[in-house]
């Protein structure tokens, strides 16, 4: 089985590496789209640094929204484990991605063993206009009481909730607010569960304002469930490597963070880049089109990527090989063992080979 192609022609891995290295060496402004585990991200960022390129995650827009909650505001958070063990009142905020539903459902079958130890109650506040079928299904499974917010955005609903809990006058009201108020009185550690997909950054900041209000006299916190675990893992890895989250570039060899300037999809669209390196171990994902710039694809696909000058198949951490991934189940990184070990090379090993094939033949620090 071939794992490397130049255009649509199968070639040896060495040939593909050499061809890709030539493209990298001649590029003025290479850009890197990442979608991989910790070690793939480490090597990719190190390569971007060496080449003076810029990098972003494949889910860059969503990730930038999540990052902005922290860079602009911060907040009060807890872990999924602590929420499961301690919280008898959980309020879902907005849409929670389907990847987290199983975890929430398992919480529903348990009772807190720390804190007030009451049976757990669930509420769900959402913007009815954008409430997805998945979110509604989750709410039904958890028997969550809906905090109705007809005609309001999620941010608006949260603002109304915040005002109502402070006994301020509001022109709109949320249904079931009295039930929530009563539940808050009984609960010692209410937790609001939200995702980067829950809403705009302003809504998330409003939620944090609400939690700050509750903490003036009592305790409350929030669980942040990233829209995508691998994307959040990439953000954390980028932070320790460069000091910055993604949408970082290495112009003048020094890292700089700029969520507009280093938006890779924008750079491709606006023809600011001349080479796109697509690194996706997710499988079945395709790089964005539109820029007509040269493309190197390192992805978990069985064939060449359409339009790519060079394609190399790589494995996924936790499936094809061991690795380390972020897991929102524990709120940190965990070692993942290969569930279906294969001969597909890891992304980091391919990036290392690319670096060593570049003029100067230096190994990457990762």
């Amino acid at each position, binding site marked *: 089985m071939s794992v490397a192609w130049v255009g649509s022609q199968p070639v040896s891995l060495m040939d593909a590496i050499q061809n890709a290295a030539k493209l990298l060496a001649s590029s003025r402004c290479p850009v890197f789209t990442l979608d991989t585990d910790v070690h793939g991200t480490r090597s990719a960022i190190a390569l971007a640094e060496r080449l003076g390129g810029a990098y972003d995650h494949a889910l860059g827009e969503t990730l930038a929204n999540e990052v902005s909650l922290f860079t602009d505001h911060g907040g009060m*958070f807890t*872990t999924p484990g602590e929420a499961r063990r301690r919280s008898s009142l959980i309020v879902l905020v907005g849409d929670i991605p389907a990847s987290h539903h199983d975890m929430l459902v398992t919480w529903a079958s348990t009772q807190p063993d720390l804190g007030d130890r009451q049976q757990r109650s669930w509420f769900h506040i959402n913007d009815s206009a954008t409430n997805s079928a998945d979110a509604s299904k989750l709410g039904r499974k958890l028997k969550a009481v809906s905090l109705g917010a007809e005609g309001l955005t999620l941010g608006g609903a949260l603002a109304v909730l915040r005002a109502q809990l402070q006994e301020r006058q509001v022109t709109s009201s949320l249904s079931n607010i009295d039930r929530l108020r009563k539940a808050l009185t009984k609960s010692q550690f209410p937790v609001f569960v939200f995702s980067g997909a829950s809403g705009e950054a302003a809504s998330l900041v409003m939620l944090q304002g609400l939690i700050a209000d509750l903490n003036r006299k009592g305790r409350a916190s929030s669980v942040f469930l990233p829209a995508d675990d691998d994307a959040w893992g990439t953000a954390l890895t980028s932070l*320790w490597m460069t000091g910055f989250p993604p949408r970082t570039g290495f112009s003048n060899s020094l890292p700089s963070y700029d969520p507009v300037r280093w938006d890779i999809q924008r750079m491709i669209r606006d023809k600011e880049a001349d080479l796109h390196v697509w690194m996706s171990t997710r499988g079945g994902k395709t790089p964005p089109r539109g820029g007509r710039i040269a493309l190197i694809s390192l992805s978990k696909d069985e064939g060449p990527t359409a339009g790519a000058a060079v394609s190399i198949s790589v494995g996924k951490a936790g499936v094809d090989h061991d690795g380390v991934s972020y897991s929102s189940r524990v709120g940190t990184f965990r070692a993942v063992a290969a569930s279906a070990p294969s001969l597909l090379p890891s992304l980091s090993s391919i990036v290392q080979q690319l670096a060593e094939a570049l003029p100067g033949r230096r190994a990457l620090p990762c």
Partner: protein
Amino acid sequence: MLTRLVGGEVVDPVNGGTRQRDVWMRDGVLIDAPEGEAAEQTHDVSGCIVMAGAIDIHSHIGGGNVNTARLLLPEHHAAHQPRPANTPLSNAGWSTFQTGTLYAQMGFTTVVEPAMAPYTALHTHLELADIPIIDKATLAILGNDDFTLSLLRNGKSSAMLDDYIAWVVGSTRALGVKVINAGAAAAFKENVRSFSLDDVVPEYGVSSRKIVKSLQASVSRLGIPHPLHVHANNLGIAGSADTAADTIAATEGVPLHLAHLQFYGYGTEGKRKFSSEAARLAELVNANPDVTIDIGQVMFGQTVTISSDVLRQFTAIGNANPKKTVIMDGDGNGGGGIVPYRYKQDYYGSLQWAVGLELFLLITDPWRVFFTTDHPNGAPFTSYPELFELLMSSSARDAKSAELNATALELTTLASVRREYNFEEIAIMTRAAPAKLLGLKDRGHLGAGAIADVAVYRKGKDIAKMFREAALVFKNGDLVVKNGKVTHYRWGKTLRLNPPPDKAMVKRMKDYHEERYGLSLDWFTFPDSAIQRDAPFAEVSCNN
């Protein structure tokens, strides 16, 4: 490779004090002068001071909270001056790359991250593994988790507590144990807003004192070389000197390390009810040989406070500058707070600065006082050179004092203390003593058999410049810094203890995690291979 440093003034308190002698190293290890052999590489270090590589025992350089601080403050990195050019990732503030680079340039070759939450150990070690050049180590945090508190509440045997602590230390690859405001993080989750040494954790009925004493005794029984590393209660508040005094008095013959004592040096005297109690604390430390301390010196400017003392950080939200914070109620011993802060040359800042210096200068035994700024809490570690100058020059202190709030300084003893640290005391405080405290027999001195971690400083009138830009630094015999610039990158190791796990405790932990978290223990542990570096860890022996 046989290397010789010739002509330098060697400051090596462990092996005979200061004298002019050659230093020889071969294959990464220091050796006695070989007979009849010529060095393959000779460095003339005439006019230079030669010391072992420095060791920092308390600097927050990696792990979840440090990374969250980076996330919270992308605009903040410029505060970490100076920024060297032409090094990889060199303007990235306190990225892992820059952390190793900047430490090495100052002649530091081993740094301890003192606050690793057990459940985030893998994250911490991933970060530490990406810090180039230097060796690292971590202390595992205990004392706020349900398992420890339940053992104490239920009167379980000390052997069981020992087994648990040994399991935590071993599975997290830690070099020791730290307790942070013992019991307060657990109490904060129950809406407790202040917590002192004899306060009791709700639900568990266990006092902070009981937690500290139990952990202290267990660390001692297990033969963990580094005494329990204690972040005491009531950090940073007026009157915290009483808490520190109580904690010092509680040692009762068992060693204990009290972290960042400067933040506990505050009394309630004066118009502002905020005064220096440094002289009193220094006297207590001088009188108690069981106690070692590090300072947590405050320097002026922008920084960010990072602490797993979530209760203290929550109460500091109002002082955040800029106005954004992260407060995290983590699992067990995890979590904490990230609160950016700017130390100003006002009354409070001046008093804090003076309290730290008073402690440095009034504690007489350099073997028991350690050089830290509690990076980045008191100041970034990049301010160390200026701090060395303040310790070694009373005129430098006078000059700086003249810029500060006179009312605050009048309430301290600083102006009357004329002590100046000499090179030998500096070498004890930053090399020999930390190695001894951590149980690292292979470093902190320049005797034969030690690893070849060597820092060479060009002697000059400008003390800060001397320590900011080491003339030469060798790490394990590799020349990594020349004239204050990193010339060679390499990867250090993370130093760890590896006590054998008790099988019954492993089974118990498996059951505990499955029952309480609904997840197997595999989710919380990891193999060394997860770090993806060659031999990322080096083992240090326990005392028994």
